[in-house]
């Protein structure tokens, strides 16, 4: 007994550790009950029987909904669910979160392939959407009236073989460079419109003892921005580049596409990045930018919400410009399309699910989103406008859109996106590899993707 009692505290300590480790995981299902007995509210008073006069959509219905665990996504999805159930009290949502990134891609694919998907789900548009085999796994909404509400430029990103499959879940985003306006004012700099000007600004910032560019390689996906956000510049030089790329006729090893990799290498060689960029996280990067410890952070504008959550004042001090290219006359920015909301073809509640999608693609849906999350770019719904308190960086993006100086990111124009880009860009940005070598490896990397999709010419 003595021996046993000695080990009890030890065992408890271990169990506490294990429980703590498990508790950190996101995910899990929660039920958002708009009303406890959805059906009974519409039932005629004094009868126990369910409403016989109600149309099918007024019966009590449970709709399951899967979305990723990004805080912005959660806030948006919850706001949409709450606003929808307020006008549809018979609908109860069972919501579920999933990890983002490759892990989430896998989960969604597996659940679709095994017929275990929720009724409606939130997932990327563009190349990732194409990999879901949408014609078999997702309900087409091509002929629904609310397709009219959606901005035309969004539709190709959720279209497969002529059918439309999803509605936009958020605002579009800009992909380029977030910058600290105080640093710019203090040093008397102006927003660069060419890469040369950008490099000159960085030299001045470095001379002033501030880190010019933040890189955050603990979250490897953040390393891709210099390459991906350069797509606008590729397109201005070769308007058909995306099509050639899909047809195996254009490569990253050649200009104009190589420039993105070269920028990353230049930044490392010129010492633009902060110390220990290899152990810096995305969240750290946002704090550094807000504090003015780094002047630029190549990023998507969805990061603005995360900055606002930490410090509502600091985010007013963040501006945005498109990644500069060679020519000031054509300066513009790359745009990321929002994720879509789709209906799984295995859903037994397709009518109600379509009503939900109609709500998401309406101005009421937009209002619900705006109330929950500050817009990070323009909405993809016709007639939706940005509120008065829109963040300055978002207004910067809007200015590019108004000027017509935007292009969608490559992943919305071509189904090909290799999985190893983020590791290759980390190598270039860390000085472990050169731009040319990494670009060549990336061209190899996408071959498997193209073959998997069965594209002609690969």
């Amino acid at each position: 007994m003595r021996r046993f009692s000695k080990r009890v505290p030890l065992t408890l300590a271990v169990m506490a550790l294990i429980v703590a480790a498990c508790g950190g995981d996101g995910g899990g299902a929660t039920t958002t009950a708009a009303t406890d007995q959805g059906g009974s509210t519409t039932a005629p008073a004094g009868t126990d029987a369910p409403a016989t006069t109600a149309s099918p959509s007024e019966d009590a219905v449970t709709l399951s909904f899967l979305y990723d665990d990004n805080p912005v996504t959660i806030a948006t999805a919850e706001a949409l669910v709450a606003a929808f159930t307020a006008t549809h009290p018979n609908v109860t949502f069972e919501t579920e979160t999933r990890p983002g990134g490759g892990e989430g891609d896998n989960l969604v694919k597996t659940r679709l392939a095994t017929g275990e998907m929720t009724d409606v789900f939130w997932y990327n548009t563009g190349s990732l959407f194409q990999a879901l085999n949408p014609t078999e796994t997702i309900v087409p909404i091509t002929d629904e009236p609310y397709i009219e509400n959606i901005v035309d430029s969004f539709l190709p990103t959720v279209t497969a073989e002529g059918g439309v499959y999803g509605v936009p879940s958020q605002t579009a985003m800009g992909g380029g460079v977030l910058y600290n306006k105080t640093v710019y004012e203090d040093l008397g700099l102006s927003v660069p419109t060419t890469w040369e000007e950008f490099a000159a600004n960085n030299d001045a910032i470095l001379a002033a003892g501030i880190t010019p560019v933040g890189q955050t390689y603990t979250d490897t996906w953040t390393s891709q921005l210099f390459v991906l956000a350069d797509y606008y510049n590729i397109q201005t030089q070769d308007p058909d580049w995306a099509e050639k790329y899909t047809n195996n006729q254009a490569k990253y090893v050649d200009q104009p596409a190589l420039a993105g990799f070269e920028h990353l290498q230049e930044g490392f060689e010129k010492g633009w990045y902060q110390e220990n960029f290899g152990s810096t996280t995305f969240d750290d990067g946002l704090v550094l930018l807000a504090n003015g410890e780094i002047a630029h952070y190549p990023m998507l504008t969805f990061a603005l919400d995360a900055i606002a959550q930490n410090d509502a004042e600091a985010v007013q001090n963040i501006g945005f410009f498109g990644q500069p290219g060679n020519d000031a006359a054509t300066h513009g920015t790359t745009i990321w399309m929002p994720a879509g909301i789709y209906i799984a073809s295995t859903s037994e509640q397709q009518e109600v699910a379509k009503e939900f999608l109609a709500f998401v693609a309406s101005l009421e849906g937009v209002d619900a989103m705006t109330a929950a999350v500050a817009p990070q770019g323009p909405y993809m719904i016709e007639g939706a406008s940005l509120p008065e308190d829109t963040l300055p960086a978002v207004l910067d993006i809007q200015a590019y859109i108004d000027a017509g100086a935007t292009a969608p990111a490559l992943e919305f124009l071509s189904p090909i996106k290799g999985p190893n880009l983020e590791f290759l860009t980390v190598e270039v940005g860390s000085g472990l590899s050169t731009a040319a070598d990494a670009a060549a490896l990336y061209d190899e990397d996408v071959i498997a993707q193209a073959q998997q999709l069965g594209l002609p010419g690969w």
Partner: protein
Amino acid sequence: MNQRTEATSEVGSLSAGGTATVPSALGVEHRPTKTRLLAHKAYPHSFYIPAAIVYAVLFIVPTGMAFFFSLTRWSLFDWEFIGFENFVLFFNRPALVSSMRNTLIYAVVTSGLKVVLGLLLAVLFTSMIRLKTVMRSMVFFPVIVSIVAVGITFKILMHPSEGLINKTIELLGGVGPSWLTDPQIALLSVALVDVWRGVGIALVIFIAGIVSIPEEYTDAVRIDGGAWARFRHVIVPLSRNATFTVILLSLIGGLRSFDLIWTMTGGGPGFTTDVIASAIFKQYQAGFYGLSTAGNVILFIAVSIIVFPLMRYFNRKELDL
């Protein structure tokens, strides 16, 4: 009696049976004798059916399917037979080839250190020192902690500017390296954590091996030589079975290691700490299910090529005490 008997009983409580059970778990056992063959016939064939069904459904069928799907381009929704293209692709990718090299380095380093440290600690903890039960528990403790928890903890401890390790080095006047982001040492950093985490198992096996060495040898050496002689001529050669077990176990563990590397570096920076298992996992995440299955077949073959000859060699050299 003396300290030996006491040690045996303690080891029994930790490893439930000592040396006798550990090697047999690896198939390192004596060739079946005639009596044992006769014993097999004592059971009617119907007795084997339940186990055979479980084995077939859970092991043979999935293995066969894996071999098949490694020859296809598989998207979960449909598949296309492409022969050995996946294998060709695998060996043409520099990142995947370097992952094989990293796996070998990782397996050899962790296995080697676990043998050396495990043996030294076992000698210490079977000697007459105070608090050895407590210290044994402390060395064994990391084994029962979740690997992911260990990985996350050490990732924080090894942070180049904020981590406790480098803060300590700074206090002592030095400058600590970037443990996990310097491509030169990142793999070794993870390997060291793996050794810290896994040396407890090696320790238990070695203790079991050492306490099962018959008294007479120790007594003889006590007359003829000192402590070094005891270590060199009694403990090292006579705990050979335990050494083989530790080498095999840790080598197999090192070859298929994944969880610690994934939580600590994710294979980075770049591909510098990618091992076969993490490289396969990335292909799987990317949706290349056929290619990742081919990677698993390669891992299976690689482990077999390394481990089976070793096992045969060890079996031949096995000692009867």
